[in-house]
């Protein structure tokens, strides 16, 4: 299942602009990491948190000097969205917050993977 932009249109627009502003080389690295995830439904990093007992949240580093990507998967459907792109590695709580906004859900619980 392919990685998608979030359903929240203003967030999706902001993320698309953020990607567009990357240099061509950084953008190629970013999209390559996403292409691998599209091809293999395995996230290259460990799960960071579980949001509301339903959404798996991951923080992925596509490469040195490439922004971190927060990905959030709805375990009910398997759908995976980009929740945020950040220069600094987000804390688990921040990643969960980004995932909540991307999926349009209130953060009720955050399960942390030790």
């Amino acid at each position, binding site marked *: 299942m392919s990685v998608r932009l*979030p359903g929240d249109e203003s967030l999706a627009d902001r993320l698309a602009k953020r990607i567009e502003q990357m240099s061509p080389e950084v953008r190629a690295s970013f999209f390559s990491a996403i292409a691998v995830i599209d091809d293999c439904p395995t996230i290259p990093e*460990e799960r960071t948190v579980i949001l509301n007992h339903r959404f798996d949240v991951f923080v992925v580093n596509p490469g040195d000097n490439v922004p971190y990507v927060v990905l959030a998967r709805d375990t009910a459907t398997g759908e995976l969205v980009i929740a945020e792109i950040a220069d600094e590695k987000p804390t688990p709580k921040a990643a969960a917050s980004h995932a909540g906004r991307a999926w349009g859900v*209130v953060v009720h619980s955050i399960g942390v993977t*030790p």
Partner: protein
Amino acid sequence: MANRNFAMSDAAEAACTEEEQPLRPGRPVADLRDDMLQEDAQFRAAWDVLEVRRRIVTTLVKLRRDAKLTQKELARRAKWNPTFVSRLESFPPHGQKVSIPSIQTILTYAAACNSELGLVFGRPEGEHVHINETVALGKSDPFAKVVNALDDTDLSIDADILKVERGPV
């Protein structure tokens, strides 16, 4: 996997009992990429340069997934630092030069996934491919025999079926 959950407030607990419908996801990120590839020649060039690394990394990650290994577990088996596996599966911006994993690295990675590595050299001839040389690089004799059986063979695909037109097996 054990989880440490933050306690929920009573209000949050009550809200959780209600069925909360998440938003429908937006467009595939790959569509956004394809639009940018059409519009931006510099990005197209940078993307194309990473093609070989992308194919190798995708194959390695598929191997690891099939072996049901995390990056840390693979690193332990290969006697590597986990950071190395993470870097191996990533895409550092290439600048002028793209780093491609060495054959020794791929061999070790494959072995950690209980897989063997072979190289196949072929010459496309119209719809056929003539396999000129093969080499199995692992330690398995059965694997080496199968790979070597492809030597000097003509292969083609017809209606999704692999046809071996000539072979020494």
